């Protein structure tokens, strides 16, 4: 499923024009992106949470050439699936 299919599903479910569902979807994703960009975490009960992990710089290797390189400090977002979704995902496949 991609963004436009998600928009379509939302439009049908709550019975609003496609254009509005599109603005809503974009705004939700934007709000989440902005929070992460500020280094904040996101916590959505039942769905999951996002946290930003900060990595210090470290000495790594180029996997292809084996050459040592200094990896600069970086931040990466991590998603942890929520309890409800995790349990349902597992119950599903039995």
């Amino acid at each position, binding site marked *: 499923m991609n963004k436009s299919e998600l928009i379509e599903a939302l439009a049908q479910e709550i019975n609003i024009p496609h254009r509005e569902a599109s603005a809503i979807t974009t705004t939700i994703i934007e709000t*989440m992106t902005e*929070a992460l960009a500020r280094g904040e975490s996101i916590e959505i009960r039942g769905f999951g949470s996002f946290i930003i992990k900060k990595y210090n710089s470290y000495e790594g290797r180029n996997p292809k050439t084996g050459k040592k390189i200094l990896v600069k400090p970086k931040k990466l977002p991590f998603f942890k699936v929520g309890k409800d979704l995790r349990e349902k995902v597992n119950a599903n496949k039995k």
Partner: protein
Amino acid sequence: MNDGYTNTKHNNLTRREIAESLSNRLGYSQSSCALIVDSFLDNMKQTLLGGETIKLVHFGTFTVRDKAPRKGRNPRTGETITIKKRQTVSFRPSKKLRELINK
């Protein structure tokens, strides 16, 4: 500091803040925004429960992945147990999101 990273946990965005932002930016009432956000998240959940991947451009991709069974230990009793094969949802951030976070 362990593993070379630190977790940041000061501000936290929840359903409520997402609904507020929606209300402020698009002008719908707070109460309808709460319902809209729920419905949006529900759609995502149902999609993932159906085993389908969700790809959101500029944000990232959510996939349902199989985790192989492995041997674990009960940390309290030290007993060895087999952790069964199970599913989990994983998220891969898009290049754009990673760039924005590191700006």
